[in-house]
């Protein structure tokens, strides 16, 4: 579900429909509330063969959002440590297969491949950017955390997060829009 808030920021709550995703444009600021699943390199490397063999995954991805992150350990009494995004491009190899299963969004930082951008259009999905390196600030928006798969991977395990008002921005929408390309176009000076 997506609603526009009074301050112009879009409130995003998974599960997301095609219509929800289609309403998002590159550069839109969003606040996400509800469930996010964390997965990065090692978890993707385990999910991928399951997808290839048509086996069930340990999480239901349809309509959901995957956050590329490996949090730092929580101090006693805290929900989580620092939890900012990791580079999305390293997951490019795995993303189209997850989108085909109905995953609607990923959150990371950094550019995606053309193959991923094409898959975002084909499957009506979106790539959000969170501020890389702002792990302490972003930890405030995480209200609950539970390891749901691959606990042996430590920081790379799949975690189920409950977030409230998690801030992000649309980097790649499902219409071909790309915030990074728009940004450089707007600010590059010819004599660089």
């Amino acid at each position, binding site marked *: 579900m997506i609603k526009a808030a009074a301050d112009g920021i879009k409130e995003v709550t998974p599960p997301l429909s095609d219509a929800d995703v289609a309403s998002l444009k590159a*550069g839109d600021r969003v606040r996400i509330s509800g469930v996010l699943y964390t997965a990065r390199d090692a978890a993707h490397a385990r999910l991928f063969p399951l997808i290839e063999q048509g086996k069930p995954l340990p999480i239901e991805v349809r309509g959901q959002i995957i956050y590329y992150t490996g949090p730092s350990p929580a101090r006693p009494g805290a929900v989580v440590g620092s939890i900012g995004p990791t580079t999305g491009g390293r997951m490019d190899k795995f993303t189209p297969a997850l989108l085909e299963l109905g995953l609607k969004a990923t959150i990371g930082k950094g550019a995606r491949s053309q193959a991923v951008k094409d898959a975002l259009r084909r499957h009506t999905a979106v790539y959000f*950017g969170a501020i890389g390196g702002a792990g302490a*600030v972003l930890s405030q928006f995480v209200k609950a955390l539970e390891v749901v798969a691959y606990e042996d991977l430590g920081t790379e395990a799949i975690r189920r997060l409950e977030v409230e008002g998690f801030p992000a921005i649309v980097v790649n929408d499902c219409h071909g829009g790309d915030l990074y390309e728009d*940004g450089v176009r707007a600010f590059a000076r010819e004599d660089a």
Partner: protein
Amino acid sequence: MREVDASAIVDAIKKLCMEANYDLEPDMLRAFDRALTTERSAAGRQVLQTLKDNARMAQTKRMPYCQDTGVVVCFVELGQEVHLTGGGLDEAINEGVRQGYTEGYLRASIVRSPFDRVNTGDNTPAVIHVDVVPGATLRFSLMAKGGGCENRSKYKMLTPADGLEGVKGWILECVRTAGPDACPPLIVGVGVGGTFEKAAILSKKALFRELGSPNPDPAIGAIEREVLERANRLGIGPQGYGGDTTAFGVHILAAPCHITSLPVAVTIECHAHRHKEVTL
């Protein structure tokens, strides 16, 4: 000879690991403030403000600035009059890293082998570079180096004919291709000259200089200034959302090299520029 016990090294390294991750250096905080006054992009200013808030929160909550608490890169200046007792140098540094990362709630990000990729669980081992120097002191310059930006570091063997313009062009190419992936605003460490490995080590060492202070050689300082200005005209901006603040600094170290060679190594460092030094 002056005797230094390994336990003093363990304690010093442990403290540096924690402080580097919780307390960004004042030169970085000043860089955020300065960029907030010059950045034209609204999205860019919002990123810079968030990073400033993040630094304050990390410091007060004793929580790492970034969840990627890095690989520990440790430069050691070992005075030749120092006699280590109670254990080896590498062993003591790694024990300090182990204790700092475990007790400081810092992330374990190192795998024991690039092939089987099993996490060592305590962020060891560190990457250690030792120079033996005159004197009776031990100096440790420690950096918690993030992986995302390290992945965008590059090396090129230019030819003498490529010259200075070739060097400038290659540094800018590295900044451009690092793009949004390496968490700009960046600090760009450059090693020019030496050999393949010497240039790479210099590019890391260059990052320890205080941000904004030029190379003491005015000719190199002028190159740093020019490349920084041009990098900030690329338009990448904070987090790659577009803007004028793509890099906070370009630091170059140069070394003599072979008549055939012009090696240039570029270490890309993100705004989570975590480094601390101590002298024992």
